[in-house]
């Protein structure tokens, strides 16, 4: 089971990295902003999987904070970008 969970985590990590390509590429600022969203969900998923695989309940708390804080970054992206930026 553990191996399975780890493999799942690995796969999730790969999807994150693949998604990051979009973040690096852009082209628009909104595309880049999706990074936070990507991590907010895939990152949380990865952490939850790892928590179970390694039996580290603390990682679920990390996931919780991820979820809480990823919003912050995203909101900041949207709210703090002024016209004419970039």
């Amino acid at each position: 089971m553990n191996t399975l969970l780890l493999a799942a985590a690995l796969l999730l990590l790969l999807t994150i990295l693949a998604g990051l390509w979009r973040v690096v590429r852009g082209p628009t600022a909104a595309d880049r902003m999706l990074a936070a969203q990507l991590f907010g969900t895939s990152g949380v998923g990865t952490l939850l999987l790892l928590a179970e695989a390694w039996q580290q309940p603390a990682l679920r708390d990390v996931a919780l904070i991820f979820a809480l804080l990823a919003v912050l970054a995203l909101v900041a992206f949207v709210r703090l970008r002024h016209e004419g930026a970039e």
Partner: protein
Amino acid sequence: MRISLPHHRYVTALSWRTLLALWLWWILAEGEGGGWGFGLAFALLAALASLPLLPPAPWPPLGPTLRGLLRFIPFFLWQSLQGGVDVARRAFHPRLPLAPAIIHYPLSLAPGWPRIFFLNTISLLPGTLAVSLQGDRVQVHLLDGRGDPHKALRQVEERVADLFIPHKHAMDEKENG
């Protein structure tokens, strides 16, 4: 007609919310015992913090009714699963079957929580994404503009309205009048 003093309303809300927060505390602690004193203190704090943010309505204490919620959740889950499947299908499809479009949908829901619920819901449903709210009209982005989006949206609006009984009445009155 029920007469409720403001402070009474607040005390009631505070108690309910503290209880809810304590339950959340128990969840956060993953069922581990101990720390209840601590938990109570912070549950109270959280409840206190919620009071100015979510002022308790006269009745019911929380926006949606329990009955409405029980009816809404299965609908919502099913619809959002469909939304996921829909997107996944399009993403995996070699030819990318997309026909993006933007429509303006006139809202009949009351401002505040009903609208927020509506906007959040349609963003998770198949093919629709709320882009912005302009007055009483919401701008909706569609992955595929070929169907009849208005009908689907109307359906969702009714479901959301069901959640908020007092507001539903308000809407009915509006329609009738």
